[in-house]
């Protein structure tokens, strides 16, 4: 199975400025393990690989009831395109999908999202659920950033209000909206346009944001010499220099790099230990599990192998989450091209895509098809799951865990990441471990951790980030456990930073519980 252990590191030398040709996914017919074609759009020349991403109705992820993991994707309602869901039973199906196209209304291929404003009733649910608006009086909130700004836009207007850079991209507005306004898509697109055409490319802010967005690039270098890199960030004053020079919050502790990356470990162990053409998953580990917390990746592999899955680890790059949050859409697209190409290939071999980071899974599921038009991107979206979610859908975890008992009693203060909430996954960890003896998982509430990936790393946002996180810190301290738990690596950083707790991933606990 070494074909799946291709060392993606060869691509590491490319930095943020790398250039890649557009990549088309393979055109041959894709088949499931059981022989049925998957994800085929009727009109697609390549079954299983729909032609378009960007020019179709954007498809937000809709949490399903867990019953139909392999449902026909084309029947899944798009809930954020505005038109389909909210037209109140009008005959939108009659509309020729080729008849109009939001691409290219604005110059340079920028999306025209004015139509999304049609779904807004101004109810302000988005604003009241926005953690940034709560602490930042200067931030006008998601309703302004999204439907209002877009509605006021015209073809010849090129400027986007600067306040878009204060949106942390936690995407809670998507979850809050009762009317399926494509808020985060509007924000992502507006931010991309702002950064592309209005942000000074030599400014400290731009350079800082570019560095934060391209964490993977710098992590890949640091990982060559992890001990040196770790020591360097702990040199007294090093972070202060970072703050002065680059505007990176000096009060934060830089995460340690693992001495062996996940991929190095995977290669060393000889790749997959289980072969099973009927149960394959392609693991999207993301950057953090690879460079910083390989124990999460290892837990994923062991748990999935315990359940008899063949794990593939395709070459991959950043999911794009930090790039979206900083408007670096070109970087995100370049990475997406690699990811989509490799994931489509794995899907063709019968795999579903599994991420252990909830932001990675959200990005592949929702932001990819909303923002990019890459061959096969819809297919990737349809086949992506979060790791625990996938097991809960496909395995009888309840039976597996019934009666299990952990040797040592453990209590956790669990925080559901905002991006998990958007996928309907905010209760899954608590529900999964409810019946395991010796485990106490306490949900610390529905507040945002405040870090939102790169937001809390910015010097000027640090205080606000901590203010947003205050409620979570307080609830964590009130909770019985003194170990934190969450699916999101940057939420974990914030939890650790605010409370001093160690933080684990649910997969690590699951690994213990099933004895994988």
């Amino acid at each position, binding site marked *: 199975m070494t074909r799946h252990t291709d060392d993606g590191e060869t691509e590491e030398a490319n930095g943020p400025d790398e250039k890649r040709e557009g990549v088309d996914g393979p055109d041959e017919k894709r088949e499931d393990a059981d022989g049925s074609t998957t994800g085929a759009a009727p009109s697609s020349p390549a079954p299983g690989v729909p032609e378009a991403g960007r020019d179709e109705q954007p498809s937000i992820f809709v949490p399903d009831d867990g019953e139909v993991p392999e449902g026909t994707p084309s029947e899944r309602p798009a809930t954020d395109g505005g038109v389909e869901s909210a037209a109140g039973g009008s005959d939108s199906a009659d*509309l020729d999908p080729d008849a109009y196209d939001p691409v290219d209304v604005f110059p340079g291929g920028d999306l025209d999202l004015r139509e999304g404003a*049609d779904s807004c009733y101004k109810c302000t649910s988005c604003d009241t659920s926005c953690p940034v608006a709560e602490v930042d009086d200067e931030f006008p909130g998601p309703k302004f950033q999204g439907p209002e700004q877009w509605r006021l836009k015209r073809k010849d207007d090129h400027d986007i*209000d600067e306040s878009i850079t204060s949106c942390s991209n936690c995407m809670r507005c998507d979850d809050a909206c009762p009317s399926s306004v494509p808020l985060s898509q509007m924000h992502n697109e507006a931010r991309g346009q702002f950064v592309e055409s209005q942000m000074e490319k030599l400014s400290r802010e731009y350079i800082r944001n570019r560095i934060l967005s391209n964490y993977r690039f710098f992590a890949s270098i640091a990982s060559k010499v992890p001990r040196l890199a770790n020591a360097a960030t702990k040199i007294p004053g090093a972070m202060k220099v970072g703050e002065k020079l680059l505007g990176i919050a000096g009060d934060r502790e830089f995460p340690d790099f693992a001495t062996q990356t996940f991929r190095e470990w995977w290669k060393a162990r000889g790749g997959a230990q289980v072969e099973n053409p009927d149960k394959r998953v392609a693991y999207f580990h993301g950057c953090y599990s690879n460079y910083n917390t390989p124990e999460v990746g290892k837990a994923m592999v062991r748990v999935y192998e315990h359940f008899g899955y063949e794990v593939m680890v395709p070459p991959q790059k950043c999911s794009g989450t930090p790039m979206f949050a900083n408007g670096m859409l070109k970087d995100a697209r370049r990475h997406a091209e690699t990811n989509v190409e490799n994931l489509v290939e794995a899907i063709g071999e019968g795999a579903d895509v599994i991420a252990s980071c909830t932001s990675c899974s959200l990005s592949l599921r929702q932001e990819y098809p909303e923002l990019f038009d890459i061959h096969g991107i819809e297919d990737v979206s349809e086949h992506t799951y979060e790791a625990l979610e996938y097991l809960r859908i496909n395995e009888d975890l309840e039976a597996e865990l019934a009666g299990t008992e952990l040797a040592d009693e453990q209590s956790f203060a669990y925080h559901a990441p905002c991006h998990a909430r958007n996928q309907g996954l905010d209760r899954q960890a608590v529900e999964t471990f409810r019946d395991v003896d010796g485990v106490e998982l306490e949900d610390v509430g529905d507040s945002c951790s405040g870090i939102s990936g790169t937001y809390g790393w910015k010097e000027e946002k640090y205080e606000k980030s901590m203010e947003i996180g205050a409620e979570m810190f307080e609830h964590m301290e009130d909770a019985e456990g003194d170990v934190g738990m969450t699916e999101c690596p940057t939420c974990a950083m914030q939890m650790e930073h605010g409370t001093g707790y160690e933080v684990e991933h649910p997969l690590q606990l699951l690994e213990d519980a099933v004895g994988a």
Partner: protein
Amino acid sequence: MDQQVDVVVVGGGSTGCGVVRDLARRGLDAVLVEKGNLTHGTTGRMHGLLHSGGRYAVSDRKSARECIEENMVLRDIAGHCVEETGGLFVKRPEDSEEYFQEKLEGCRACDIPVEVIDGEEARRREPYLARDVEKAIALPDGAVDPFRLCVANAADAREHGARIETHAPVTDVLVEDGAVVGVEVEHETGPGKRVHREPGTTEEIRARHVVNATGAWAGNVGEMAGVDVEVRPSKGVMTVMNTRQVDTVINRCRPKGDADIIVPHETACILGTTDEEVDDPEDYPEEDWEVDLMIETLSELVPALKDARTLRSFWGVRPLYEPPGTGTEDPTDITRDYFLLDHGERDDLPGMTTIVGGKLTTYRMMAESISDHVCEALDHEATCDTAEAPLPGSENPARMDELMNEFGLRSPVARRSGQRLGSRADDVLDEWDPNPVVCECEGVTRAEIQDAIGEAGSDLNAVRLRTRASMGNCQGGFCSHRIAAELAREYPEPVVRDAEDELYQERWKGQRHALWGRQLSQAMLNHLLHATTMNRDGDPATLDAEVDFGAFDAGSEAGSAGSDAAGDSDAGTAATDGGCAADDAAIDGGRAADDAAIDGDREADDAAADGGA
């Protein structure tokens, strides 16, 4: 307070405002009287097209030539009212090639700059155009805001000494010794700015000449003077979409037909229209099929319209006129030209001139020609400069960076405020700090609202026309009370409540024709917020009389006390669902005749329900 002036202009539409501006600039002492707000009649009920003349290039070349000439003038003198969108006449496969060529030749013959583009190029410019559009003629159509245009004309007239009286219907035309010598007007809330609950007065304004610029209503004024003016009012529906599906004016290139134009107007698109003769410009049916026809037919050009959100629909009445004896059957065949009726020559009644026909694009030219005529009649020598002198606000464009940096406006708000206020932006915005956004949909700040209140008194519909506040997708649901609250700095609470009710009712009226899909949801949410959360469907605080607190506190012991309170509360309360208080019909100038009947029933039902409870 009777007054002797040079000229009284009756009618505050584009023609009347243009005439009073022209006369004032020529040094005449002029008064404009309008029965409602400025633009109350036809001007406020059009699709906002600034004609290039292309529409008339086949059927009416004289009008076409005038249009292109005035189109260029308005870009100069009214920059803050005009958006230079450009226009397309698009040809679908079933549309006649012969007509396309005729249109092209007609445009060229009228000196309208044209360019023929293929379907692909047309879709590159307007990507939502239907895939089977074959080709198009591109020409300099534009969008014009009729409200801002009239307000700017009136403002300029006032700066040159004219008096502008709105809510001042003419009740009589004074005729003495076989000549018109003035008009009698009723000031509904007294002269000057309209303030709710001010007592009404009557005034005779004596003038050396009266200009009847009341368009579709010209016959009514003529009748008061004892002359016949046979206007043939023709109604047309316009449907407002929530967003701009197109940023260019889209015309269907075929001979006359209903539903053949889409005009991008400010934040919205306006679909138009129909052409059907009616008997009475005040009272004609507004029918659902007309709205359906707009959306269905225009979806052939822009398929996205079919599923897009509709905000409201409204109807306007064209003041068509043709000389007696022409006998045209179909109103679409009646000329769009304008006619100046000198009643001295025509009816042996000197002292009054009527102007009918015409269109908004050529309003200035019409005003110039009638002003020439009036000056001649009054033996007053002065030259017209309205084609060169910019309107107030259009001297220079607003500077975006200043609005954002100095006044701290968010960029889309700065953009819209800058467009609306033009060169006045600095002065208006400088007055208020803090300056929060009051109407979020249209990006209208407190400063702009206060500026409009300064001009319009407590009339929030007049504030709306000046600012666009409440014209976005919530249709006043989230802002009419905020706008009204801005009045509270200056006016007492009952005035504020009346003003708010009046604005909210006006917003409701147009939405009645868009109650499906998303606008229905919006209307329902608005209703729940206003009726329930804000308690506006029966708030005792809206009563003029003392509140009978006993009616509330008696509880279960008090038997029927509650029914009295309910009976009282109907009097001063506007029901938030559009059922409105009985006096509303009068305020609406009769257009709400149907409403009044419906509302009457409603009130009765409500009263019955309340009484029974």
